[in-house]
């Protein structure tokens, strides 16, 4: 093809993606010093990187593909339970991790297959039901799961000589997961897969006319999201070292992930991670002040964002930026 000869205006997406790649590397590099800068806020640090990774994973299906999952806690819980129960049964750690991922991918495949064929809100409806069924089963199947008292994971063999209960070790594991999640988002943003996901989100019929197989594309994205989320679930299990069905399968947990993505911007590379940072810092900073009002404020934030800033806060910022530097005359120095 003669494409090399024609000077092509690079799509903004490519530029945005390059910028995001730089931003991710810089952010990960900065975060790598976190345990040295804030050695007394490691719990916050672990939950920050962990939730940033989970929100980014959620966004693969929720933001990019527009399939609103209100049940991602199902993967957090199933991952955490599979890993923990296998660890307690002395299964090697890598195998337990693999099993956790496999279980979640299988769940995603079945659940996606049932609901993605249907138009409309069925996926969102079913997402709540799936997490709820898992919660009820874990709650009642005491001989396997420990029932409502939950399971504890107090002894884990060291990983490459590192104590897994050391918050610093957990932090770097979480950071690694965040890196992987962000890289997945980066890949999606600049690949055929990402275009297909967005096309499905924007208009599924139109996407099909262009050769996109919606069921397949959504399933792949959902499975990828589930796999990342299950790894996050394993780490969450280690971090808590004790958990119960009520906690890991909670609707609140799922909603938190959604909220982080909304606040940061659904379907953006770094938005969900940014949303996690904003939300968690807000929560931690005002923990003693907000008290009962935090969920109310979440609700108000959701309503306001959906109403006035449907692209999320980062989308809002982006648009402001575009208004200041309109389309054709984008100055390269603006970034």
């Amino acid at each position: 093809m003669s494409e090399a000869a024609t000077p092509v205006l690079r799509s903004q997406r490519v530029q945005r993606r390059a910028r995001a790649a730089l931003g991710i590397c810089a952010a990960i590099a900065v975060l790598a010093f976190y345990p040295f800068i804030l050695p007394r806020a490691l719990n916050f640090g672990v939950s920050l990187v962990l939730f940033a990774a989970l929100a980014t994973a959620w966004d693969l299906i929720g933001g990019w593909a527009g399939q609103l999952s209100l049940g991602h806690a199902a993967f957090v819980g199933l991952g955490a339970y599979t890993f923990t129960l296998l660890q307690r049964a002395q299964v090697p750690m890598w195998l337990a991790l693999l099993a956790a991922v496999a279980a979640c991918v299988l769940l995603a495949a079945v659940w996606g297959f049932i609901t993605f064929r249907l138009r409309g809100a069925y996926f969102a409806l079913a997402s709540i039901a799936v997490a709820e069924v898992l919660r009820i089963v874990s709650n009642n199947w005491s001989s396997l799961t420990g029932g409502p008292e939950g399971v504890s994971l107090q002894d884990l063999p060291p990983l490459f000589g590192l104590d897994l209960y050391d918050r610093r070790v957990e932090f770097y594991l979480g950071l690694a997961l965040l890196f992987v999640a962000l890289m997945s988002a980066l890949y999606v943003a600049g690949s055929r897969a990402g275009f297909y996901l967005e096309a499905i989100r924007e208009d599924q019929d139109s996407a099909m006319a262009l050769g996109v197989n919606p069921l397949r594309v959504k399933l792949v994205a959902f499975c990828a999201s589930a796999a990342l989320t299950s790894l996050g679930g394993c780490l969450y299990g280690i971090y808590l070292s004790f958990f119960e069905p009520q906690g890991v399968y909670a609707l609140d947990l799922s909603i938190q992930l959604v909220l982080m993505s909304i606040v940061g911007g659904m379907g953006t590379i770094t938005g969900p991670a940014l949303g996690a940072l904003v939300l968690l810092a807000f929560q931690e900073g005002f923990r003693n002040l907000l008290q009962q009002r935090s969920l109310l404020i979440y609700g108000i934030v959701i309503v306001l964002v959906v109403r006035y800033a449907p692209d999320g806060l980062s989308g809002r910022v982006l648009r402001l930026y575009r208004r200041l530097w309109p389309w054709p005359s984008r100055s390269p120095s603006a970034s």
Partner: protein
Amino acid sequence: MDLIGFVQTVASGVLTGGVYAMVGIGLSLIFGVMRIVNFAHGEFMAVGMYIAFALFRSFHLDPYLSLVVVAPAGFLLGAFVERVLLAPIQNAAEHSLILMTVGVGLILSNSLLLIFGAHPETIYTSYSTRTVAIGPVTLSVPLLVSFALTVIVVAGLFLVLTRTDLGRAIRAAAQNRDAAELQGVDTRFVQTAVFGIGIVLSMAAGVLLLPALYVFPTVGGIFTLKAFVVTVLGGMGSIVGAIWGGLLLGIVESVGAGLGATGYRDAFGLIAFLLVLLVRPQGLFGSSHV
């Protein structure tokens, strides 16, 4: 379980199922006309319960009588939410609409939490624990009354839908919004009205359950989920389907619990829900729309 116990169990399942049906009808009506799944449906119901509770506590107003206050309040609240929050984004992507209702639900339940506290509240009326015996089967008076009122409300709804201009407009809009608009139906108004009516049904169901149950600010979540189950069992958008779906859910839960799997009671409905999605997504009871 012996035979009498079984009959007793089915009977109380039917009575509870009637109220589930009313919650489901509201959800289904809203979906049928507006294509919006109201994720705040149960939370509206909780609001209804608290209004009745507050009236009872402050003025000793009988909870059933408080329907007179709750119904118009529900209509206004629903119409307000529709006009101010849903109408402006009605052409937005589906996930935005869902999120909006999720947000509304969070606001409602947490406002209740701030106003009334997390503490569960019960009202105790003279008939709270009264029963009537039909042969060897005893039935709860509050549940019987609730069921009877449900029947009346639903019958009223059917009359409105079939005998009034508004009802005809609603049915036309449910079948095809564009076509209805061409025939001169003010679909904007119809949508507001439908959301209002749907919320009235949900809040009325809350009031009817109050004498038999208790209320706490997050009770709505449970009922939102039940309403989903009811409507999916019956077919999204189908009112008749929602009635059968409600009764079926009531009986399934009741019999399941009576057979000794109390802990899994909520799972029965949800598993049925997922199975229906897999096998018969249009619902078990055909597609007799609005």
